[in-house]
């Protein structure tokens, strides 16, 4: 593997594909679809190669690539992955393949542009997870924005333009703040290297500047996560986005924000983060409980799942905030360090799980919407007898989402609870309310509303899932079950990275 630029290939194959699609004739939709799907398999295969060749015992940055790019500004083309990004790269590749395959069956208009944008989107997302240079990171961060804007704005629902522009502006506002902070860091430290920056601890002499930079970047990522109160773009974007767009939006785009917390905020500003950790944790807990309760008030299936995402992403931030809160004390207290590691492991695992679970849920919304053209939970009823396969698949996914042990969601929630309760016990205990409410609205509104009770005669001829729809769900359910029953492989991948990262930063603040 030495010297083989595998990350570059993973990141730029989709761009290449997108360009080829531009060159393909517009009428040849079959070729475009087939080409896009086959091409997206390349990053997936390579992501699997990366997963299995990543030396998790070391837990360091691996598969690194570094080339001069803009030497005068010491901007380099730096790429590399560690135990946190490896699962994310795989998740992105997997969900892209699933989304493209699903889209190839349901997208009927402007096929060429759709697949072009989708591949471009994959490049942006991959780039964020693989780049280790602020400049590069920011470029990829913004690139991901544009295709999603078009996916919502062109292939979306009735209020698509409002949703698209809201999504774009909201994220862009955050990006601007992040850019300011990045530039400020560059001017003081003279580097764009993310890893290098973490070891230099910018603004360590001026807490005000550090705090300003922290909050600037925080808002950028908090919008993306999204964290309460920056979440209102999410329900609109989800409701209007096409099915596969929602899958990627929930499955990967939200993870970009969480990833930013772990890659940038936590290692680079551990001091400021430790000071503000109570606020961040509070926002996380509010997101968990508030998101769940607002979810319960929804009758639109897609909106309900969108708000449940707000709740679920709260666990990620709760885990990260707990680790940040432990701060310097971890250096002398191995038990605390372990607790923080468990919390962050849980957060990363929750990122992965939420990707496959909520991605799956949005896919399933698409399945029913294609047939009934409604998402109103009051319009269904008793479908359990009519569409048994759909019922079984939906039930499994919903159970995974509400954190039933034996499925992946639980493992992550358990780890977050376990890690966080050692550090911020009261907040963590309050978050427990979210678990009950989540179970209530999923089983009451989704399962009971759609599948149980007497059959609504309107849907007497509702066809069950098609083969391609089942095929899309198979890998997702496989991972829900695999990591639910046997989470060791994925925790192995990240554990040492997280552990050494937290250890390093605790020494850094302490020293």
């Amino acid at each position, binding site marked *: 593997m030495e010297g083989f630029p595998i990350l570059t290939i993973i990141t730029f194959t989709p761009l290449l594909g997108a360009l080829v699609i531009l060159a393909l004739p517009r009428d040849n939709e079959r070729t475009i679809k087939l080409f896009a799907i086959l091409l997206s398999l390349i990053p997936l295969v390579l992501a699997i190669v990366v997963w299995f060749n990543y030396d998790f015992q070391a837990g360091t940055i691996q598969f690194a690539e570094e080339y001069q790019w803009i030497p005068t500004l010491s901007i380099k083309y730096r790429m590399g992955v560690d135990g946190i990004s490896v699962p994310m790269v795989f998740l992105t590749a997997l969900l892209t393949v699933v989304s493209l395959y699903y889209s190839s069956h349901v997208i009927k208009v402007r096929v060429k542009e759709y697949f072009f944008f989708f591949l471009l989107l994959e490049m942006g997302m991959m780039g964020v997870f693989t780049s280790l240079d602020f400049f590069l990171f920011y470029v990829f961060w913004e690139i991901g924005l544009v295709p999603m804007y078009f996916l919502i704005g062109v292939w979306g629902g009735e209020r698509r333009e409002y949703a698209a522009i*809201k999504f774009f502006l909201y994220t862009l506002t955050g990006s601007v703040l992040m850019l300011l902070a990045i530039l400020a860091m560059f001017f003081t430290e003279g580097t764009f290297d993310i890893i290098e920056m973490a070891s230099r601890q910018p603004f360590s002499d001026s807490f005000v500047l550090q705090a300003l930079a922290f909050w600037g970047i925080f808002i950028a990522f908090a919008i993306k996560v999204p964290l309460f109160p920056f979440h209102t773009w999410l329900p609109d974007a989800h409701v209007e986005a096409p099915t596969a767009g929602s899958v990627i939006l929930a499955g990967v785009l939200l993870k970009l924000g969480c990833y930013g917390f772990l890659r940038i905020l936590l290692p680079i500003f551990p001091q400021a983060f430790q000071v503000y950790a109570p606020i961040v944790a509070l926002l996380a807990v509010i997101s968990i409980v508030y998101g769940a309760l607002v979810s319960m008030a929804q009758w639109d299936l897609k909106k309900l799942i969108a708000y449940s995402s707000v709740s679920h992403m709260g666990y990620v931030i709760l885990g990260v905030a707990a680790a940040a809160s432990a701060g310097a004390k971890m250096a002398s207290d191995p038990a605390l360090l372990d607790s923080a590691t468990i919390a962050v492991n849980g957060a990363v695992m929750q990122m992965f799980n939420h990707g496959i679970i909520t991605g799956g849920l949005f896919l399933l919304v698409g399945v029913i919407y294609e047939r009934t053209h409604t998402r109103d939970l009051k319009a269904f009823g008793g479908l359990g007898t009519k569409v048994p396969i759909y019922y079984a698949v939906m039930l499994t996914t919903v159970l995974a989402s509400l954190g039933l042990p034996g499925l992946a969601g639980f493992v992550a929630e358990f780890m977050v609870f376990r890690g966080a309760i050692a550090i911020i016990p009261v907040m963590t205990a309050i978050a427990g*309310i979210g678990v009950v409410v989540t179970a209530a609205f999923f089983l009451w509104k989704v399962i009971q509303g759609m599948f149980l009770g007497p059959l609504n005669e309107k849907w007497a001829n509702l066809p069950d899932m098609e083969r391609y729809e089942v095929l899309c769900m198979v890998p997702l359910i496989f991972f829900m079950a695999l990591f639910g029953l046997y989470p060791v492989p994925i925790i192995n991948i990240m554990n040492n990275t997280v552990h050494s990262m937290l250890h390093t930063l605790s020494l850094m603040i302490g020293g």
Partner: protein
Amino acid sequence: MEDLVRIVPFIPMVPLLTFAIIAIFVRRHHKLSGYLTVAAIFIAWLLSMVIVLGAVANMPHFAEEPAVHLTLLRIPTGATTLDIGVQIDPLTVALLFMVPTVCLMIFIYSVGYMEGDPRYSRFFAYVCLFSTGMLGLVVADNLLLLFICWEVMGLCSYLLIGFWFEKPSAMWAGLKAFITTRIGDVLLLLGMVLLYTQTGALRFETVFDGVERIAETNPNLMFVIALLVFGGAVGKSAQFPLHVWLPDAMEGPTPVSALIHAATMVAAGVFLVARMLPIFVVLPAMPALAWVAAIGAITAFFASTIAVAQDDIKRVLAYSTISQLGYMIMALGLGGFVAAVFHLITHAFFKALLFLGSGSVIHGVGTNDMMEMGGLRKKMPYTFWTFLIGMLALAGVPPLAGFWSKDEILAVAFEQNMLVWVIGTLAAFITAFYMTRQVCLTFVGQPRKKEIHAHESPRLMYVPLIVLAIGAALLGLLGVPADFPVLGPLLGNNPFHRFLAAQFHQWHYVQLPHVSFNASVMVISIVMAGCGIGLGYLLYGRKPLEAGQRDPLERLGIIWTVLRNKYYIDEIYRGTVIRGTIALATLLFRFDLGIIDAVVNLVGKLTERWSYVSRLFDTYVIDGIVNGVGRVTSAVGQELRYIQTGRVQNYMVIVVISVVLLMGVFLYM
């Protein structure tokens, strides 16, 4: 023992595998799925019996080492790992005797009972998964695996209560069960992670080693942890105030009620408290234990009073189950570990028997309403006689199983806490009364509804009844007090007690009261049982009710109304917790749209205006500066190109302005 523990993982694995096979391959072959299930549980039963016999033969082993372990999984947690595995210890062995035996009987019965149901194979897939959960729970060597199995059972319970989900009452009952127990589960989850944090492990032994230190350094935390863990048991074992789900759970098929909601799953809460008893007793003043005893005693009494005023044959049994579980919890709260486990096991047999008997009745007459039944004694002889044995065992008539186990609990109560003993004895009287009422209403006299043509159930159903009846009659003899005249020494000096006594000897702080045989307590409880049966016979047996005749207890007036309406607890919850949560949810959603989103839209609008103005500014002022700034801006501009598409370019102006401002700031500094 080391070899023995190797086969333990297979006990839950076999049903799990069968579940997967049925769910994926044999969905359409109804008969086959039933047989597969019975075969799977039979294998699990055989393996369990090997363990039970092996463990009993190796009994002295437990005196040296509390448990034998087999670690299956190591999950990395920072520098340490979290080990998940299985174990054999006396408590596990006791449950491994009861659970597979009762399951096997119920599964055989189900093959007959579910005959002709369109979702026949789905039923067996669910019960297979359920038995995986229950068996896994019993053999788990740590809280996490226990919790996982606990929740899997909760899921199966949800699916099986709502098995006939076209019926709205069934679907609501399933939801209610899941959510109510989920409240307890979250408490347990919090208790578990706190224990894990404080002791650094989840394996029971390590936890028990560690809690002593917590109790010394932070007794309040220890108290909270114990109560949180107990919260899980309150939900699962349907103790007051989370008992409301269990009576509604009777919407499920009868074998399910017998298996999950009487014999095994609801006993999981009791099992948990028994398993975790050291964390309750570790605090010197035992405040947590007092709570356990109080909740148990309240539940035991209050549920038995409700059972008096119910007409649904299964609901009477459901309240009886709650009441009996209350007994067990109460016993644990008084430190009566062996008594509680003993009652857990005997209760499983006679309650499963009663539920299956009621199922046989329902199968025969097609209704749940005892007011429509009557006179079934002649038409369903096997059902009647086995039901009678179950009823007498539950009422505490010697020498049946329930008598010995209930008496042991009351003996513990008598020595530990007079008040609890009085409550327990009163509840025993009420129990004997309502069971007599049930038997009289169901089997005595003449049918009160003409259209009912009862018939005895097929052999596949009544043979399990007979097996369970034998257990309900004789199992108590394993636990006859050692100092009971003649019978005690004759039956091996209470072998059950001797076997379980080794459970916590490793932890010196676990000082459980040793209770010797007390003749007066026993006589009083026999008298109470006699009075209850006598009163029941006087009211319902001597002159059986005629069709249309009212229940003689209606003369109690307001008391009757309150009892019949279950103290209005459902209504209170609906009016407060449920309505409150939904109102809060709606309110927050309005807040989300009306405040947060409105602010966002306002900011958007204002920015739009501002950007229009700044565009003019940009054309004449900024451009010049930008051109002069040089490399930095060119770099920024280079990447801005990517985003400058379409209508959003105006907004990028903000970026440029900001960069310039920032540069200005830094030039000055």
